[in-house]
């Protein structure tokens, strides 16, 4: 009976952002398909109405089916049967419901039977599914891989594989190997070309592969024998129907237990190369990972939402010392900070999704026709912004997701430690978000350039120039002071021209940037709807003190101090 979209006004608020008018017009090529497909929108209002109605279906399936199954799926988990994966019963039910609802291939073009939705409603669906079951969103969200096929594969490959995705076949991306985790340049799985048959074959092992037994997999493999770096790697499509790959093991994980994490053995498995040889890692995986990081951002926000709701409901219901525990400052402070972190990560999620939306759509348009000069410039601007925000989002939203899950258990007290309440599962599920698709530490590595080259500072100054109501101006004044503090701190580190020193403080500086940017986004949300003023204030006060703490640490630190922190290798 629950609807996870309708019961959350924050989602509709973010869906209705003014930039959507541009995004939808681009995505729909000014509604050119309205007479070609009976489900294509006629105009902007029609498209937005469709987004909202379809998200209502997502919310219903999530509330009535996926969330209801989450506990049993966590307990049962997938099984290894005949060298393949057998999903938990609830997982099968979830997939069937989403396939029947036509929610596979949401962003794919209509000619492949996709919904041709822009990134924002797709990410919103991922946000909602994650709240229902963080493990299940992985299986469903791997339809992201289809986006990579759509971007880089041949027309023939698109025709054959994308139509299968929209019919509900699940996917996997096979990157990691036992000796190639964060360092994907070390991938060894061998791809050999048989000239007589005009056929590639894969041989080797992949590890920690989510949904590894999916029907269609993207596999990163070494085509250039004798090479040892990223430039010898290419991307392949492996079709399970053709055989050659077996699942050797399913990992026994701490959380997201419904999502099968597989060790795969490829023995002369036939596969098709995607795009150009040697571009596997440097181009296609980078695109794939950017999409995946946005997806984990959505997962983090969805899990945060679940954690916050469980905590809030429990704090209202649980009585101690003659009153509901939500009346105690120690508890309500925790809750309001949870909500502020949730709202901050969500507003960053949709800002990032919008930027990705604009530049990706321009990229697809550029396949159809030459872009005008200002279109090309706009594409570059949005891509730069998306590249700045993606690691910031992945890094900070996943950490907040963990913090919120921790606090949600804390608010439950002893009961939260028992399996009787959903927070116990949410706590375990949250843990992976700051690890996979690049750890927080690697997001910092990706984000630090935005710190040292002034990318984030420019963004802050852009936000600073936005129009505000008078009642919000004092908050902007605080933010300008925070921005100055950030700028000085960064200069203090950069002027030393010492990479190790910069790396040492990198996370602190990236988080300072994140706090300012998320505060600005909440301020702009408050400009659009005063209801967000409260959460903007709470987050701003929190961010301000967090940034002081970091600035203070950095000011009182010297290059020589590094030695104190080192261990013998």
């Amino acid at each position, binding site marked *: 009976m629950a609807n996870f979209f309708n019961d959350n006004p924050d989602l509709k608020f973010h869906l209705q952002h003014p930039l959507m008018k541009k995004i939808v017009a681009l995505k729909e090529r000014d509604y050119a398909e309205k007479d070609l497909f009976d489900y294509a929108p006629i105009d902007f209002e029609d498209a937005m109405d469709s987004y909202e109605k379809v998200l209502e279906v997502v919310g219903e399936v999530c509330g009535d089916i996926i969330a209801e199954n989450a506990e049993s799926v966590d307990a049962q988990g997938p099984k290894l049967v005949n060298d393949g994966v057998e999903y938990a019963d609830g997982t099968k039910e979830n997939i069937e419901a989403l396939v*029947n*609802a*036509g929610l596979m291939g949401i962003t794919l073009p209509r000619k492949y039977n996709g919904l041709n939705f822009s990134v924002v409603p797709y990410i919103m669906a991922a946000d909602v599914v994650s709240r229902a079951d963080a493990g299940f969103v992985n299986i469903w969200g791997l339809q992201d891989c289809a986006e990579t096929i759509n971007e880089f594969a041949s027309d023939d490959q698109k025709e054959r594989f994308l139509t299968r995705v929209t019919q509900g076949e699940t996917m996997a991306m096979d990157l990691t190997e036992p000796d190639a985790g964060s360092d994907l340049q070390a991938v060894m799985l061998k791809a050999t070309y048989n000239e007589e048959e005009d056929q590639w074959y894969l041989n080797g092992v992949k590890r920690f592969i989510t949904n590894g037994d999916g029907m269609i997999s993207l596999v990163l493999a070494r085509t250039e024998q004798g090479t040892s770096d990223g430039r010898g790697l290419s991307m392949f499509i492996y079709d399970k129907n053709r055989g050659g790959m077996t699942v050797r093991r399913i990992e026994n994980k701490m959380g997201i237990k419904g999502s099968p994490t597989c060790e795969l053995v490829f023995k002369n498995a036939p596969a098709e190369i995607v795009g150009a040889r040697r571009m596997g890692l440097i181009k296609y995986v980078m695109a794939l990972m950017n999409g995946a990081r946005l997806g984990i951002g959505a997962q983090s926000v969805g899990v945060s939402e679940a954690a916050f709701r469980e905590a809030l409901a429990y704090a209202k219901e649980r009585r101690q010392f003659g009153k509901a525990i939500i009346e105690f400052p120690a508890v309500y402070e925790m809750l309001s900070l949870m909500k502020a972190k949730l709202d901050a990560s969500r507003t960053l999620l949709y800002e990032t999704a919008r930027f990705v939306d604009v530049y990706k759509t321009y990229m697809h348009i550029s396949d159809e026709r030459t872009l005008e000069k200002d279109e090309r410039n706009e594409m570059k601007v949005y891509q730069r912004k998306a590249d700045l925000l993606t690691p910031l989002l992945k890094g900070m939203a996943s950490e907040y997701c963990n913090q919120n899950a921790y606090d949600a258990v804390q608010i439950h007290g002893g009961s939260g430690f028992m399996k009787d309440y959903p927070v116990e599962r949410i706590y375990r599920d949250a843990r992976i978000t700051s690890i996979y698709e690049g750890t927080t530490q690697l997001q910092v590595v990706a984000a630090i350039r935005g710190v040292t080259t002034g990318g984030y500072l420019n963004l802050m100054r852009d936000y600073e120039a936005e129009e505000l109501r008078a009642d919000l101006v004092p908050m902007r004044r605080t933010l300008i002071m925070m921005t100055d503090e950030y700028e000085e701190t960064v200069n203090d580190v950069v002027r030393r021209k010492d990479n190790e020193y910069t790396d040492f403080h990198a996370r602190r500086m990236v988080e300072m940037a994140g706090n300012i940017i998320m505060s600005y986004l909440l301020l702009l949300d408050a400009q659009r709807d005063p209801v967000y003023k409260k959460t903007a204030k709470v987050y701003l006060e929190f961010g301000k003190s967090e940034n002081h703490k970091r600035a203070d640490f950095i000011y009182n630190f010297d290059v020589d101090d590094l030695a104190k922190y080192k261990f013998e290798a």
Partner: protein
Amino acid sequence: MGLKIIVLAKQVPDTRNVGKDAMKADGTVNRAALPAIFNPEDLNALEQALRIKQRVKGSTVTLLTMGPGRASEVIREGLFRGADDGYLLTDRAFAGADTLATSYAISLAIKKLGKCDLILAGRQAIDGDTAQVGPQVAEKLGMPQITYAEEIVEVNSKKIVVKRRLERGVETVEGPLPCVVTVNSSAPVCRPRNARLLMKFKHAKTVTERQEANEDYLEMYHDRPYLNIQEITVNDIDADREQLGLAGSPTKVKKIQNIVFQAKDSKVLDATDEDIEGLMKELIANHTIG
């Protein structure tokens, strides 16, 4: 060869989450306070119909509902899930109908829709809980009926095999087509709305709705005929007006009271004349009838 399936559906107030204002002072249902929904067991029936459509190629699923103009929502909900078309039986002349007058009107509408192979309906609606309309329609059309269906095990153009969920177990029966089957809530729940169908049919409206709405997309209904939900009025069916609506409804509400179920077991009657006579006597004695 495909089967022509008609699904009977009713829009009902959602009595599953009843608040304080669910009943009016005069003892009638306060429909304004309760959201109008697709009767749950009719959704079970629709799911069975859609499964047959997938199994027997060329089959079609047509929804038929009787109600006021807003009941067209039931037709749209069906279209979003895979029904081919739908008809709204609506007219002031049908207002105030009890199950007898309702089944009379529905049976005439079904005749008007032409030959069909299978009529599916929910066992009962959650507002009245009578479980009478499906069986009465079967009687009026002279078709055999199978009630309490949980699963349609097999169906072809000649016969149907149905698993029935009964009080003390299950029973699998076979019947000829055409026939009426009423479906239990223990049957699989209905599939969700499909995104593509939702976008395709979301503008589907009856003529009345189009006239009432401040419509922006007028030419669309010309270009896309499937967006026109057909209305059937009293003039479209060959009806004896005395048997319609309030006039055709012998049921009278004598009084309304809150009750708490106390009987632990239900009473089981055999389909014998003695048992039925015994029941009639009991109902007359306690003034349920007469």
